[in-house]
């Protein structure tokens, strides 16, 4: 091994003996280049290439000259040291080999400027596509994940996944909403409920009511046709709001005893270690219990070096079915709330002016009726007659 290493060096040597000029001439005749020749008592010193060392040694041996190398310069010495410790060399080779092999594993996920909540949502989506730190990634997986995340149009306007050398870069833009006004349909607007007209705010069409006017359920409020002076029909789609004051009652009941899932306060933690495409799960005793799940993702890293591994920590807050006994007041309050929910479900823009409540307890349940007096848009395309 050593002669090969010598080849890269420059050597300084000393030749001693009788008639050393002959050594010099013979060496040069053999095509050896010598530099820095210095005369010494009974010999000379010179510099030459390491590759000519064997020739020079042979020559000196044949002519009975004393030949000795006293200096070496070049990469040979550190190379020899490296060869004396093959573990270092092997370790380096192994390192680059593993680096090349493991470049298809995800070492880190760069979420860019995403906030924590969106990051967690994105992690869940990617986890469903089997993409996380420590997972093996191929093009099909990436494509599937790309398609899945692209469907989240409520969060991302545009999103792309780029996987390069172990790092998954997620680039995205936030979704922007734009209200596009639809063309008014060629349908008249009718009163959804009987009441008194408070405001007329038609955007299109021909209004047939005025504020202060009382209307009946199903009455035509905004028409799409009008006749001009000559009796010709003028058509225009109907849209807009007709605000009316309405009185309406809602009834709801609330049982005094309810079977419901209640958080017990106990929790269970499931941990899974994902590393180099493999999964190690922690064993659990209480498996299959119901509960609210909360997932935390913990990528592993050594100092500032990310590792192709991740711990998925799932905390399950256990729930148990229990009978809840409400008092009459509690049950009535819940029933009242239910009535209001019904009102807002039907009239989301309702402004309540007054309400009259009536509550009774019938058997094991509280029944409440609330009569609301409210203002809301009562125009509807449905004919309520």
């Amino acid at each position, binding site marked *: 091994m050593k002669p090969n290493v010598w080849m890269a060096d420059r050597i300084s040597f000393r030749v001693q003996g009788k008639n050393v*000029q002959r050594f*010099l*001439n013979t060496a040069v005749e053999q095509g*050896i*280049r010598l*530099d*820095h*020749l210095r*005369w010494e008592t009974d010999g000379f010193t010179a510099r030459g290439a390491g590759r000519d060392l064997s020739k020079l040694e042979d020559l000196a041996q044949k002519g009975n000259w004393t030949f000795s190398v006293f200096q070496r310069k070049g990469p040979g010495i550190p190379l020899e040291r490296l060869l004396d410790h093959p573990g270092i060399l092997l370790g380096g080779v192994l390192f680059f080999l593993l680096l090349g092999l493991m470049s298809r594993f995800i070492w880190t996920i760069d979420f860019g400027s995403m906030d924590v909540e969106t990051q967690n949502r994105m992690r869940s989506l990617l986890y469903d596509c089997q993409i996380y730190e420590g997972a093996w990634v191929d093009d099909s997986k990436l494509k599937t994940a790309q398609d899945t995340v692209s469907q989240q149009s409520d969060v991302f306007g545009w999103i792309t996944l780029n996987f390069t050398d172990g790092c998954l870069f997620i680039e995205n833009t936030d979704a922007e909403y734009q209200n596009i006004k639809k063309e008014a349909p060629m349908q008249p607007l009718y009163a959804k409920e009987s009441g008194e007209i408070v405001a007329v705010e038609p955007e299109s069409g021909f209004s047939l009511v005025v504020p202060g006017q009382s209307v009946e359920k199903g009455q035509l409020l905004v028409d799409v046709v009008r006749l001009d002076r000559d009796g010709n029909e003028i058509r225009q789609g109907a849209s807009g709001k007709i605000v009316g004051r309405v009185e309406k009652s809602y009834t709801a009941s609330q049982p005094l005893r309810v079977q419901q899932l209640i958080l017990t306060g106990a929790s269970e933690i499931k941990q899974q270690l994902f590393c180099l495409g493999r999964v190690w799960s922690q064993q659990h005793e209480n498996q299959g219990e119901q509960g609210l799940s909360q997932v935390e993702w913990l990528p592993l890293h050594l100092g500032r070096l990310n590792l192709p591994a991740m711990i998925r920590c799932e905390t399950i807050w256990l729930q148990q079915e229990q009978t809840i006994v409400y008092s009459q007041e509690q049950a009535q309050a819940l029933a009242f709330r239910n009535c209001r929910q019904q009102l807002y479900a039907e009239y989301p823009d309702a402004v309540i002016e007054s309400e009259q409540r009536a509550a009774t307890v019938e058997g094991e349940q509280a029944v409440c009726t609330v009569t609301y007096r409210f203002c809301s848009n009562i125009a509807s395309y449905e004919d309520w007659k």
Partner: protein
Amino acid sequence: MKLQNRKTNHNRTAKASLRGMMLQLPREFYRLPDFELRGGYLTTDGCRRVLNFEPEKVCLDMGDFTVTFYGAELRIESYAGKRLVLAGQIETIAFQNKWGKPKHET
């Protein structure tokens, strides 16, 4: 008369120098080794052997003749093939043919 003679001599000298410039050197001239001296370095492309190598005296075999350099701190900077670079304080250069008769000394 004197002016006429002087003019004639001048013409003869000019013609001779012109002839000398046009004259081709002997063929052997181009086969002879040459020396190039620059500063404290002397370079030659015709060194066949080093006959003597000491700080005060370096003798080189140039084929048909030998050349000896006398001086101080003489050393060979590079020697490969027939190209040799000599360095040091060269004081005297002596040429001698192979038969021992000195050619001339500089």
